[in-house]
């Protein structure tokens, strides 16, 4: 039973690893990517470490697991905040939905123009 719980926790952690990485790869802008990296990253690492603690069930391991999780919970928001502030102050271009619509409209329009120019 304990192995079953540990297996479920570890597997969920693995799935969230993929979710976090997809967020990093697919989201359009630094701040959105940061959200996926800090929140989902902390969750998946916490799940895996919780799985390890359940599997070993030993005082020393549980203590280390709690130390890692508390440390991640403390540092991930601070690191995220610092990167976000740096991104904002260095003037990284931010994404907005209107721009996205305009860009796709332009693409469709330019496609039509090209088709007209080259019969």
């Amino acid at each position, binding site marked *: 039973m304990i192995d079953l719980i*540990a297996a479920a926790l570890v597997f969920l952690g693995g799935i969230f*690893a*993929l979710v976090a990485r997809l967020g990093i790869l697919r989201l359009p802008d630094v701040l959105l*990517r940061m959200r996926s990296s800090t929140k989902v990253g902390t969750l998946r690492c916490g799940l895996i*470490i919780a799985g390890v603690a359940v*599997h070993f069930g030993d005082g020393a*391991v549980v203590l280390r697991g709690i*130390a890692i999780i508390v440390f991640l919970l403390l540092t991930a928001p601070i690191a995220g905040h610092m990167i976000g502030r*740096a991104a904002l102050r260095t003037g990284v271009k931010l994404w907005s939905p209107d721009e996205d619509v305009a860009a796709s409209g332009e693409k469709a329009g330019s496609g039509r123009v090209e088709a007209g120019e080259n019969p």
Partner: protein
Amino acid sequence: MGADLLEYAVDAAVGMVILSVVLGFIRLAKGPSLPDRVVALDMMTVAIVGFCGLAAIRYQDIAFLDVGLVLALVGFLATVALARFAERRVARRDAAEEEEE
């Protein structure tokens, strides 16, 4: 049966974590700006902390947890240092431009 299941789960999770680190490398190479790259590096450090936990189960050795703990610490320091560097670089460039004017 439970032990077998745990082994499969750990193997699958190792595969997924490695895949996520590889995809993170893509963002690290592509990232249009320095903060993008810092975010990708930060993410990879956290992924490797999770990998240390998986290695602890895989090889039945709790020493990997200490590695993970230290890695979380060092990764946080690296992220903060890189973020400060990015911020100061722009501040310094602005100051230099003002002097020129």
